[in-house]
């Protein structure tokens, strides 16, 4: 349902910057979410099918960005990054398999 992708990013959500990022209207937008201090940089974000999300682990310990529905599971050792290309509209909960209290949601619209 989803596939990995590597593209230049258009918007960045820094650690702790919980305000909604601004996107251009261009297709295939790119959002970077930093993980730091045991938190995802955003708790909820709305995206469109065709957008790409990249998680960057800036924390001390290894994390994952794992879809609750099992559609992806990105292993993120310290200092590593991983992306997912969003295809299917819907709401998706993402959590860390190692630290299940770390949760965020993605709302993907057409």
């Amino acid at each position, binding site marked *: 349902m989803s596939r990995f992708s590597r593209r230049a990013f258009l918007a960045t959500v820094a650690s702790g910057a919980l305000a909604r990022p601004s996107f251009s209207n261009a297709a295939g937008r790119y959002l970077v979410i930093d993980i730091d*201090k*045991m*938190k995802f940089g955003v708790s909820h974000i709305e995206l469109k099918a065709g957008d790409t999300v990249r998680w960057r682990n800036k*924390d*001390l*310990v*290894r994390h994952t960005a794992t879809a609750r529905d099992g559609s992806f599971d990105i292993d993120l050792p*310290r200092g590593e990054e991983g992306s997912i290309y969003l295809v299917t509209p819907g709401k998706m909960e993402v959590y860390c398999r*190692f*630290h*299940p*209290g*770390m949760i965020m949601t993605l709302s993907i619209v057409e």
Partner: protein
Amino acid sequence: MLKKIFLSLAFVLASAGAFAQDAAAPLNDARIAHIAYTAGQIDISAANLALEKSEDAQVLAFAELMARDHAAVNEEALALLNRLDVAPQENDTSAALSSQAREREEQLAALAGREFDIAYVENEVTFHKTVNDALQNLLIPNAQNADLKALLETGLSLFREHQLHAEHLLHEMN
């Protein structure tokens, strides 16, 4: 069962006692760092024992996580102290923690199978709860350096996750 409850209770009370403030040697950053580092090493040691003794996949996964996370935090603590040019200072609290942990580990080492698994995870619940209480109420409020305080706060968030994880695992095992 009664023996297990008594051992857990004794450990909690003893650990809580270890964190009592010593008026003759008040907490400073060097002592706080030593206490936090010691607590991390204690949990790594317990995790290594579990990795050696347990055959339960969930317990092994949990122990592996404890060893990895606590090692990462302690590595960062040492790097921070190096940057600050502060040497961790041994103190009565860290010595008491180490002594109690050795005793507890000997008790754990004498157990086997499911009895070991449950005792290990119970110990993880009580140990993290005690350390988290100490971090929140004693170590973080007394830390002076902002970077040390921030590291302890991140540690507290991480160790609260560990405590929840251990509680959940224990619930599943019972």
